[in-house]
């Protein structure tokens, strides 16, 4: 009997063997020869890091395997030293970095976009302000015909539907940005607070960006929030948001960049900076960067060097790829600051492991 099961297993393996065989001819699919570097963490930048890894493997032979296990997972793994670097959408505070001997730097930016399912309303045909968004998510404004919404949207034909609030059910950097934004602009949100998962006063939770998008699409009158790429690729009805200068702006890559350009990175130790509600007439108010975490003191200088050279290469050559996937590259001035910060990563000999050629 056991023999039979083994036979069955062997048969499965045999089925797979030809696949391994034909991979040799494919050329591309050879097992990597060099050392492999692992990183893990935030979900948001994972597609882009995969793109950069693929490009660099071809260009320089460097094999870097990044896996999305969540920002919390990234922070825990770098602390446990099971990976060469961690990644998080939520920057660690300077004192936390200090405590764990970590260095943090941003790599790329994105935005969070409120989306709605309103029959008869086109993308951009809905205007919202931060405090109104907070009232909706608090469950205080429950109908689309509410005077507060009508006052902002004179001329728009909003249906008389109840508002169904949809939020992320899983802990997420997207939720962190969204709730941090509400905390920044709406005092009434303080009782809920800002975190990657909060005690939502109203609504239901969808798993992942995709789950939120699906719930919003399936429920007329629903409102949700997703990463920019989802809103764009799914052609969802996004809302215009009022920014710090009072203008109603659309979620576009240019407006995310405007938010980053207005920020003063030099006064942010450890790059601890949220790009929320930044000044500038084009700045999209819910913009954020994603971060890499590394130990300052490295026992294996070669691996650390490879990680930093990976991001150096990406800063130089990866902007077009980032834009193609709806991410927003860092402004050049910020990239220079980040490169300067890398001298803080030192090997066993106390010398910086990587010198970017500038």
């Amino acid at each position: 009997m056991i023999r039979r099961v083994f036979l069955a297993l062997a048969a499965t393996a045999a089925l797979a063997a030809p696949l391994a065989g034909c991979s040799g001819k494919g050329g591309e699919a050879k097992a990597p020869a060099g050392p492999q570097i692992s990183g893990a963490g935030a979900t948001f930048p994972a597609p882009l890091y995969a793109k950069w890894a693929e490009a660099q493997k071809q260009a320089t032979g460097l094999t870097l395997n990044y896996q999305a296990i969540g920002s919390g997972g990234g922070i825990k793994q770098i602390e446990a030293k099971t990976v060469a670097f961690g990644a998080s959408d939520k920057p660690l505070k300077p004192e936390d970095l200090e405590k764990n001997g970590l260095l943090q730097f941003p790599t790329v930016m994105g935005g969070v976009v409120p989306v709605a399912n309103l029959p008869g309303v086109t993308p951009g045909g809905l205007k919202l302000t931060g405090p109104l968004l907070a009232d909706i998510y608090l469950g205080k404004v429950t109908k689309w015909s509410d005077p507060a919404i009508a006052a902002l949207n004179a001329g728009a034909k909003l249906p008389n539907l109840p508002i169904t609030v949809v939020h992320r059910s899983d802990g997420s950097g997207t939720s962190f940005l969204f709730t941090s934004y509400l905390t920044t602009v709406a005092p009434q949100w303080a009782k809920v607070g800002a975190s990657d998962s909060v005690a939502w006063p109203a609504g239901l939770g969808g798993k992942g960006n995709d789950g939120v998008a699906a719930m919003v699409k399936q429920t007329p009158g629903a409102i949700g929030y997703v990463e920019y790429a989802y809103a764009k690729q799914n052609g969802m009805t996004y809302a215009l948001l009022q920014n710090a200068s009072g203008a109603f702006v659309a979620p576009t890559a240019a407006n995310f960049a405007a938010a980053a350009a207005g920020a003063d990175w030099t006064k942010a130790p450890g790059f601890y900076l949220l790009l929320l509600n930044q000044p500038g007439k084009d700045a999209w108010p819910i913009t954020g960067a994603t971060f890499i975490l590394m130990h300052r003191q490295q026992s294996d200088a070669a691996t650390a060097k490879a990680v930093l050279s990976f991001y150096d290469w990406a800063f130089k050559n990866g902007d077009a790829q980032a834009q193609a996937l709806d991410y927003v590259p860092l402004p050049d001035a910020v990239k220079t600051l980040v490169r300067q910060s890398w001298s803080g990563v030192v090997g066993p000999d106390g010398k910086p492991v990587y010198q970017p050629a500038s």
Partner: protein
Amino acid sequence: MSAGSPRLSRRAAEYAFLVFCWLATGLALVALAAILWALFKQGVGGLNLAVFTRSTPAPGSEGGLLNAILGSVMMCVVAMAGAVAVGVMAGTWLAEFAKDSAYGKVVRFVNDVLLSAPSILVGLFVYELLVRPMKGFSGYAGAAALALLAIPVIVRTTEDVLRLQPVALREASVALGAPVWKTILAVVWKAAQGGMLTGALLAFARISGETAPLLFTALNNQFLSLDLGKPTANLPVVIFQYALSAYDDWRRLAWAGAMLIAVAVLAVTIIARLSTREPKRS
């Protein structure tokens, strides 16, 4: 039963019962068909030769699922080999040696508890046990987590079918002078092989699509690697990450991968069933 004619009510109950059995099977098949149809509709568009010959791509690049398929096959084979060995032995001990002893009862109870262990917790346990001390994710850790999920299913089914084998079977063998171990191996296991196989297949079916325990043990790997000592690519995690992404080419691959798992389970089930005889029933 209190109806005027007991014969009539007996017949009515019989018909109602038969109709229900037909209906139940029909509904189960309808559910299966609906899910398979959805899988097929979404998955077939993503299927092509590259799926089997190239590794997982970044969005916008060409690629396939080769690394994930190989990683999954390697981990499942290692996990099932371990799980069948441990599970069948433990099930045999419960059925043949433990009888109604207190320790047997405890082990039986423990096994039932393990059955409901959420896979994510099993993954965390293996993470603490293997990944953290060894300072790195690995395919072996993934296989260990999968084995831990498969074992209780095999133990449960093995014990159940062994216990239902008639005592006369064992007596006949022993009366012929066979030692107990040979009796169990050659007679009892042989008689129970259909049921034990069902257990192994259910266990395989359960672990083949598990995402949660692999995320913190095998992690995943963007590139092809045959080294189980390193982070190992696998289909469930790839499906999970790609299915929830914003990019159409990734989603197509996710559905193609999901279809491959369903097909693999079907293939293994059929191969295994063909290699054993179906119990005859008049």
